[in-house]
């Protein structure tokens, strides 16, 4: 099977503090992998480094996306190549209408790929359909991006973007945190609806609950900036029962 994302011995730090200390991971095309781990283990840092946030310094290793050097690309180029990050805490954009934002993003990607832009009327039809599938009230398209949205609405808005932008590789950074079971199901439906041989995802989570709904092909445990254990979907259930302690002790041994 061809690898869509290959991470080799990735080291990254913020303000001279090492966070990732040699992460290696391969996600083949068509697979969904989960990353679990205690707080502060570097899960979010990994998602930011992959999406190109510049306050993190990569000090070693490489990341290949479809065989291309991902770390050499600007954040917008990564998005155009098909990478999508669902943020843990999406920012608010006062003064920017949600529909306008979504269309700007979609058309920026289409332009960069040499595809025709989507006009406002057709776009609004697409966006309304997608919003309905995500059980979002329609006025969320009219409101300013994430302004006054509840935590759950912000997460759903991330899913709306994912569904409209149709990425080839999605990173969900604790998208499940703070969601009730109905919202969790909507998020899972969003990801499962994209599952296809040409789509892969990295689901970062604390809890096994989401992984009951998005069943991963592999589960990796990240502890202190390194993957200390990998396994099948059962690993998530095992961690839910025994906690991270055993895995951490095992890794230290």
């Amino acid at each position, binding site marked *: 099977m061809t690898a869509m994302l290959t991470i080799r011995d990735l080291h990254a730090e913020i303000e001279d503090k090492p966070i990732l200390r040699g992460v290696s991971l391969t996600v083949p095309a068509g697979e969904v992998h989960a990353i679990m781990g205690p707080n502060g283990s570097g899960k979010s840092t990994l998602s930011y480094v992959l999406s190109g946030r510049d306050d993190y310094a990569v000090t070693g290793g490489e990341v290949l996306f479809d065989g291309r050097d991902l770390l050499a690309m600007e954040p*917008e180029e990564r998005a155009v190549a098909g990478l999508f990050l669902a943020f843990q805490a999406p920012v608010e*954009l006062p003064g920017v209408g949600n529909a306008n*934002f979504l269309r700007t993003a979609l058309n920026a990607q289409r332009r960069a790929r040499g595809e025709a832009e989507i006009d406002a009327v057709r776009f609004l039809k697409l966006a309304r359909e997608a919003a309905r599938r995500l059980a979002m009230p329609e006025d969320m398209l009219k409101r300013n991006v994430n302004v006054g949205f509840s935590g759950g609405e912000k997460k759903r808005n991330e899913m709306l973007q994912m569904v409209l932008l149709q990425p080839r590789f999605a990173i969900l950074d604790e998208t499940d945190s703070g969601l009730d079971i109905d919202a969790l199901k909507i998020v899972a439906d969003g990801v499962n609806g994209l599952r296809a041989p040409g789509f892969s995802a990295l689901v970062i989570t604390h809890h096994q609950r989401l992984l009951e709904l998005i069943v991963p092909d592999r589960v990796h445990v990240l502890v202190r900036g390194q993957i200390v254990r990998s396994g099948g979907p059962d690993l998530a259930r095992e961690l839910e029962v025994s906690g991270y302690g055993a895995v951490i002790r095992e890794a230290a041994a």
Partner: protein
Amino acid sequence: MSATLEQAGSRALAHFQAVRDRLPGCPDARVAAAEVFRSRGLPSRRDEAWRYTSLRDLGATSFAAPEAEVSPDAAAEWISLTRGLPRIVFVNGRLRPELSSLPAAISLGSFEVSAPKDATAAALPFVALNTMFAEDGMVITVDPDIECGPVVLLALTVGGNVDMPAVCLRHRIALRSGARLTLVEVAAGSGRYFANCVMEAEVADGAKLSHVRIQRESIDATTLSTLFVDASAGATYDSFTLALGGKLARAEVHARLAGPGATVHLNAAQLLAGSQHADVTTVVSHDAPACASRQTVKNILADRAHGVFQGKIEVARAAQKTDGYQMNQALLLSPEAEIDSKPELEIFADDVKCSHGATVGELDGDQIFYLRSRGVPERDARTLLIRAFLAESLADIEDAEARRMAEDALEGSWEKLGR
């Protein structure tokens, strides 16, 4: 006073002596204004009202009217900005009837210069200078209960390459009781010049003047405008000023809420780059009870640009139940950009609600990254966020055509921010 300003002041007086007999109308008012100007001179930064804005660029002006003519192509291009709306067009300080098209509800009055009735206003140096030299201006009256607009007032100036001619327009607008007018004022030009415009507006009981001002003067121009507004009982003066052009620009407004229940909005946005300097100075006088004034001034400053906001709210003893609000916000796009903000409240009544605030910030790195992570190129992301900063100001322009004109003017301004 600096030697440069002193010489410029003497040059203005000498030029007045040379041309006074050829100027139209009321020589007494002009001579009196020249006396005011002689005793007052051009203000320096030691003057409190001009503390943040230096006029040394006026060292280059001859105070003489421009001689260049606007080419038909250039005129047509500027006129195309008016979106086919009724318009009153001035070129180099003179009305051009053949370029203008007035709506039926408005007739132009004959121009005559006179000093403002208010002594403080008459004592302002640039008002005196305008009274000395103004040869033309828009004089309009909207009759009671007539609704009119939008009408465009377009002032074009063709300046020099080396020399710096001067243009003084003097406008007078009167809205009778219950009348309504949307006026879109566009100031534009090319080359080097000094524009010194004065407008006096009377808004009678229950009347409403919506005033959208788009200042897109030449980047080599010095442009000063002084506006006097008098709002009677229940009247509304609602204005938005967009400052884009000029090397040195100042929009000064003196608004008086003269009758109970009057409302004044003095909103503005300044978009500046390079070494542009623009100044919004306002004096809002609450002279009657139960009036409201609102002011939101937004500054977007790139490169070494310098924005100034001086806002004074005066509340007279009689003006109980005054509701005054003032906000100055600045978005600094470069470490060398600068904003000066001076709010002043002078309150003599005891039952009033007055507040003011100021914010200064940069574009938010998290917001830029969020947009980029969705595939929006960095430059477009920044433009989107700057536009968002202005969104509420533009949304407040009630008339759709006027709003479109302001948006069109902004559209051509992103380039200069250079990112």
